[in-house]
């Protein structure tokens, strides 16, 4: 099927057995809720779709649904995701699974409706308060908008954590061929009770009640919760790193880019190769956990890295941390909604790393 990235998210959500979507319109992601409203999944799978009064309400609806063990999600774009940070922090603290889609646009402030990748820090460093991390997946195609929506739910429930799909305005708006994931039935309430014994579905007779909360007034208990979260993040960092390598085997220079920037860099690799420069591309699919080990390994055999982003340079900091000074790490980025051309990126590689 040919469809927009935003539409692919909606289709994938219904197909993977999502129980509830709660959202608020914002460009450039409004097609997610529009598609859901058109598809009327409440008549087929029974999925609830509700337009909330704000992004603050949306994320808290996701919290409420997730607390019942339900597969719930929301989607928004940068300013709206800023409003959700409180709810995301509460979900992290209450160990609740849920999926948040951010189809990024340029900021700061109201910014622009054009694409951007400047919410990288907010997503991977913990945009809300307190010590938490959020698995962050970066789709680079309409196909991945669908596939990673399914994966985001899997990770969210495996690690009991809010999980983000960090896309950009172009991946959201562009149309490509996509093979939609197979239908999975929504869980029944009995299955939910068995799988998620913590869920607030109503306290069975003679059992202890369930409490969904992030509050611990005793310092020792609060530290214990934090240690549990940190242990989970260490497992995530070990088990869930995903990336794609393109022409890295013999590369002298490696682009590091995600989302639409990776698509541009892929073309720049071709241009470089046609001019005899051995360039490659490392495309992180998980931005958190970041492919630290892969970059470390590459840094033993390449001459330099260049991080290409639609921002003033955010992911480049993580590349530098991984490379740890072994070889030069340069940055090239555009802001304000501008996407560089492959030639522009290739020239940046030549200017910054080769000459």
């Amino acid at each position, binding site marked *: 099927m040919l469809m927009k990235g935003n539409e692919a998210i909606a289709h994938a959500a219904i197909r993977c057995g999502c*129980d*509830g979507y*709660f959202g608020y319109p914002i460009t450039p992601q409004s097609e997610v809720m529009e598609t859901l409203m058109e598809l009327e999944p409440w008549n087929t799978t029974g999925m*609830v779709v*509700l337009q*909330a*009064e*704000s992004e*603050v*309400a*949306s994320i*808290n*609806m*996701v*919290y*409420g*649904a997730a*607390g*019942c063990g*339900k597969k*719930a999600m929301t989607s928004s774009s940068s300013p709206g995701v800023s409003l959700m940070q*409180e*709810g995301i922090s*509460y979900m992290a603290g*209450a160990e609740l699974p849920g999926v948040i889609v951010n189809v990024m646009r340029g900021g700061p402030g109201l910014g622009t409706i054009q694409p951007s990748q400047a919410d990288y820090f907010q997503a991977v460093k913990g945009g809300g308060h307190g010590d938490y991390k959020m698995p962050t997946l970066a789709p680079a195609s309409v196909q991945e908008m669908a596939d990673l929506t399914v994966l985001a739910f899997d990770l969210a429930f495996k690690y009991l954590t809010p999980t983000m799909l960090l896309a950009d305005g172009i991946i959201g708006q562009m149309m490509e061929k996509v093979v939609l994931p197979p239908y999975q039935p929504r869980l029944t309430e009995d299955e939910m009770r068995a799988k998620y014994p913590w869920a*607030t*579905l*109503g*306290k*069975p*007779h003679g059992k202890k*009640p*369930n*409490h*969904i*909360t*992030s*509050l611990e007034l005793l310092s020792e208990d609060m530290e214990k919760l934090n240690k549990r979260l940190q242990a989970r993040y260490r497992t995530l960092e070990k088990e869930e790193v995903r990336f794609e390598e393109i022409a890295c085997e013999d590369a002298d220079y490696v682009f590091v880019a995600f989302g639409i920037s990776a698509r541009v860099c892929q073309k720049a690799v071709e241009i470089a190769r046609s001019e005899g420069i051995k360039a490659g591309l490392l495309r992180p699919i998980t931005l958190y956990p970041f492919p630290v080990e892969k970059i470390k390994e590459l840094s033993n055999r390449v001459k330099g890295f260049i991080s290409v982003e639609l921002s003033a340079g955010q992911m480049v900091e993580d590349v530098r941390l991984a490379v740890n000074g072994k070889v030069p790490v340069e940055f090239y980025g555009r802001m304000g909604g501008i996407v560089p051309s492959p030639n522009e990126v290739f020239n940046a590689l030549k200017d910054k790393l080769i000459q």
Partner: protein
Amino acid sequence: MNSMNVTDIVNPINLVYKKNSVLTDLPMHYCPGCSHGVVHKLLGDIIEELDIQEQTIGVAPVGCAVFAYKYLDIDWQQAAHGRAPALATAIKRLLPDRYVFTYQGDGDLAAIGTAETLHACNRGENIVIIYINNGIYGMTGGQMAPTTLLGMKSTTTPKGRMYERDGNPLDMPKLLAQLDGVCYVTRQAVHTVGAVKKCRRAIKKAFEYSALNKGTSIVEVVSTCNSGWKLTPDGANKWMVENMFSQYPLGDIKDTIQAEKK
């Protein structure tokens, strides 16, 4: 003459009062004289009487009642400040045969959570909102709330609330009663035995209404905060009767289901 021993007195025949089975045995953290404990007990009474302990999910606020989930033996979610109606919306939409209620204070419902409250009510979510209005921020130490009376002193209005600077006390139930999504709005108190009985009937009605899918039910309980008000428990009750009730008069504000019956 045989003297009586304790088992002669404490036995089922002599039982005149029994704590409901929904309230836990945990000592409450509320200040002596606080209204929260009485309202908790009433909720436990109603949940027991309607036999809905296994079908009820509560949403606790941020405020003094943040620990409400420790005192009633049902499933609970604890919400971010003001967001309880958003949580309750999702819970009720995804579990339509459950009884879902929020328990919110006046800071939670009438200040930071006005949007979530108003829109949940406007959508006519079939939930119960228990609204404790004591005219002050109790947990943070007695700051001005949107419900604080004009002239009333608080730690952020040490010389009293002034209309010119702070606006008038906000009457949320009166405002919410105008929405078609709301089927029942009532204002109660728990300062006397008679008032407690009336409040109990109101809460029961609200829970029963929430199962009819006719919209949102709101029970405001005009409450005391003797520590925030810097009064004795008894003095706080008197002050409430003399000052709060004129601003927040008790009684039903709206009851569309009763009106339909007539």
